[in-house]
C-alpha cells in the first residue's frame, strides 16, 4: 500500500492530467468532491489546481525577437556548416533600441495562451500582434 502522501499526489496528478487533456470539456473526477480517498476533504489542492490551470497564461516572445534569434541561429548554423555567417551578429540591444525609438513596436508581447490551446498558428498570432501594433 502506498503512503498516504503518495496516494494523494497520484490522485492530484491524475486530476491535473484530466484537466490539461480535456480543459473541462468533459466531467472530471474532482479530488475532495467525488473521491472519498486520501484527497477527500482536500478541496484546497483542487482549488489550487483549478486556479493554476486557468490562471497561468502562456506568453509568446515578441515576433521581432523571435525573428532576430532565428537569424542568429541561422548565422551560427551557416558558420558551423562552413559558411561565413558568424561575423554578422547584431546585438539584440541594437534591435530593442531601434524598436523602442520607433515606439509602436516597443511592446508587441502577446498573450497567446488561449491561442495555443485552441490551435492557432503562429502566423495567425503574428497577424493579431501586427494588427494590435497598428491600433
Amino acid at each position, binding site marked *: 500500500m502506498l503512503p498516504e502522501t503518495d496516494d494523494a499526489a497520484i490522485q492530484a496528478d491524475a486530476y491535473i492530467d484530466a484537466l490539461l487533456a480535456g480543459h473541462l470539456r468533459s466531467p472530471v473526477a474532482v479530488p475532495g468532491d467525488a473521491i472519498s480517498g486520501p484527497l477527500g476533504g482536500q478541496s484546497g489542492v483542487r482549488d*489550487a489546481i483549478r486556479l493554476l490551470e*486557468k490562471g497561468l497564461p502562456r506568453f509568446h516572445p515578441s515576433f521581432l525577437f523571435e525573428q532576430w534569434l532565428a537569424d542568429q*541561429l541561422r548565422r551560427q548554423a551557416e558558420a*558551423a556548416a562552413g559558411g561565413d555567417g558568424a561575423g554578422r551578429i547584431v546585438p539584440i540591444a541594437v534591435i*530593442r533600441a531601434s524598436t523602442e525609438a520607433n515606439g509602436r513596436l516597443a511592446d508587441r508581447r502577446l498573450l497567446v495562451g488561449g491561442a495555443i490551446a485552441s490551435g492557432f498558428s503562429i502566423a495567425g498570432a503574428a497577424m493579431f500582434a501586427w494588427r494590435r501594433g497598428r491600433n
Partner: protein
Amino acid sequence: MLRRGKDRASVLVYFDVDRSAVEAARRDPRAFEALYRKYVAQVYNFALYELRNPHAAEDLTAQVFLRALSGLSGFREQREPPGSSFRVWLFQICRNAVSNERRRVRRHPVAPLELALEIASTDDVQAAAVERDQLDQAWQAIGRLPEERRQALVLRFVEEMSTREIGEVLGRSEGATRVLIHRALQAVARQLGRGSDAPRN
C-alpha cells in the same frame, strides 16, 4: 507475447517525437530552425516565469538555443527509462541558464505583476476582470514558492509536461516529482487560505 507487447509499449512511450528533426539538424545545422520554432515560446515562457522580466527572458532564451545548437552533437536520446527527449534536454539547459543568471544577478527577482496584467488585455471587460483576478492570484502564488516547486508547477501547468518529463528536467524520480508537485499545490492552497487541511511539510 506479453513481453513483446510490453517492449513495444516501452518504445512507444519513450520515443522522442523530435528524433527526425534532431537527426536532420545534426546532418545540417541549418535544419535546427524547425526545432527552434517549435520550442521558442516554451523556453521563453519558462524563462519569463522564472526571471519575470521580458528582456531577461529573451536574453536567456537566446542563450539556451545558441547553446543547444552548438551542443547538439552531445545530445543523446535514451530509449530506456528515465529516458531523455530533446525537449527535456532543452529545459535542462534552460534550468541551468536560469541558475547561472540568478547567480549573476545575486538577488531574487521582483515580480512585476503589472507585466502580466498589461498583457492580459481583452475586449470583454467582465471576463477581463475575472481573468485578471485569476492571473493575479496565480502569478503571486507561484512567485512565493521555492525555486524547485515553482519550476515544477510552471512545467506542469504552463508547459504541460508529464510528471515523468518534469522529473527528468529536475533530476528526480517520477514519484518524487509527483510528491513535489503535490506539496507545491498544498503550499498554493495555503496561500489561497484554502489549505488548512493540508500538511505543512
